[in-house]
């Protein structure tokens, strides 16, 4: 006899315990409205958990976001003359926000921005410093939230696309700078991006927060 057969024997006996339960489709029971309402909430919560809130996901999100900027920085052609960055152009293509920005590439960052105040409860967990790219990440172990700030010298005619099925983009103005914020449908993933000089700035916040707090956080960057 094989091990598989032995395991099947255990399975067969375990299943006997519930053999008297009819098949799902044969049970005629209408759950109460109270139950259905509770379950709808739970299913939505599970959807959010499935999409964004598993312990590993924020790391994946940030890793992807970081990887993109690294690629952009790595593929830039170099120009000796800095020209004005055109800015963002939005298009909705195939369910994605296509976000393009133009500008002459630089081979390195000038001034490097950072938070003047670290959000309470967060500690620095990762830092990457390259000539044309800067990245720092902070994690909050209490609630598994994380925040990452990246800065990259802008390459020529590049674009990023974002899924618009699970989120949308809003525009704000902070001290004269247009701040674009991608917000997921469940309010626990925010990606703010804007241009300062010839640098592309991106702040990713994974966790429950508000737009006002995101904007306040941006104001602490100097």
């Amino acid at each position: 006899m094989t091990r598989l057969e032995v395991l099947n024997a255990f399975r067969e006996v375990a299943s006997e315990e519930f053999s008297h339960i009819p098949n799902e489709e044969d049970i005629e029971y209408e759950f109460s409205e109270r139950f259905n309402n509770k379950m709808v909430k739970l299913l939505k919560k599970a959807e959010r958990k499935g999409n964004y809130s598993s312990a590993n996901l924020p790391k994946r999100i940030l890793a992807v976001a970081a990887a993109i900027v690294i690629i952009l920085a790595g593929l830039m052609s170099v120009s000796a003359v800095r020209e004005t960055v055109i800015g963002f152009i939005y298009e909705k293509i195939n369910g994605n926000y296509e976000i393009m920005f133009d500008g002459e590439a630089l081979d390195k960052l000038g001034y490097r921005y950072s938070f003047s105040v670290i959000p309470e409860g967060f500690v620095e967990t990762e830092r990457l410093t390259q000539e044309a790219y800067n990245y720092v990440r902070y994690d909050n172990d209490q609630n598994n939230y994380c925040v990452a700030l990246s800065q990259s010298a802008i390459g020529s005619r590049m674009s990023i696309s974002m899924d618009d099925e699970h989120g949308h983009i809003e525009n704000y103005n902070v001290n004269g700078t247009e701040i674009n914020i991608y917000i997921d449908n469940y309010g626990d993933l925010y990606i703010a991006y804007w241009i300062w000089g010839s640098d592309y700035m991106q702040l990713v916040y994974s966790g429950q927060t508000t737009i006002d707090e995101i904007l306040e956080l941006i104001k602490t960057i100097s």
Partner: protein
Amino acid sequence: MLVLYLSMIDNDNDHNLFEKIYYSYRKQMFTLALSVLGNEDDAEDLVHDVFCNIAEKYIPTLQNIKNEQDMKNYLLKATKNSALNKKRDTKHSISLHESENLLHAEEDINDNKFLDMICNSLSYQEIISAIRNLDKKYEEVLYLHFVVEMSIPEVADYLDRNKNTVKKQLARGKSLLLQKLSLIGGLEL
């Protein structure tokens, strides 16, 4: 132009699984809960509680269950255990769990050796018969550990038992099953 995609939404596997099990087993879970609790409102509350627990803690375990029958068994066992716990007097429940710790220390047989011993010498029907004759508490621990491939801490958490209790029940279950199959010596219990 360089086009790059920011894949913030990785996948919906967890949510899809949760939704699938909800729509596939909710009525069976309710029926089982109702048979223990005898009240529709309590049974609905219990089914909701079980799903809350799953959403909170057990999705990774469920992702590892590939056999449809094991999935059903897992959910119905969770429902039955929760219903029994709800019905049972808490003090009595604790004393029952504690009583398991009074078991004599059982020499634990290595998992591989245990399966090999059974594989090498018996027919399917003999094994079925021996498993059926095991006390339920040992049978379900053996099933969860060997078939659903849950670790001792996972089984303990799932059955709401002490880890040491589950460890002893697993060792004793293996030993009792081998005794029933006359593969090792010992008293028929």
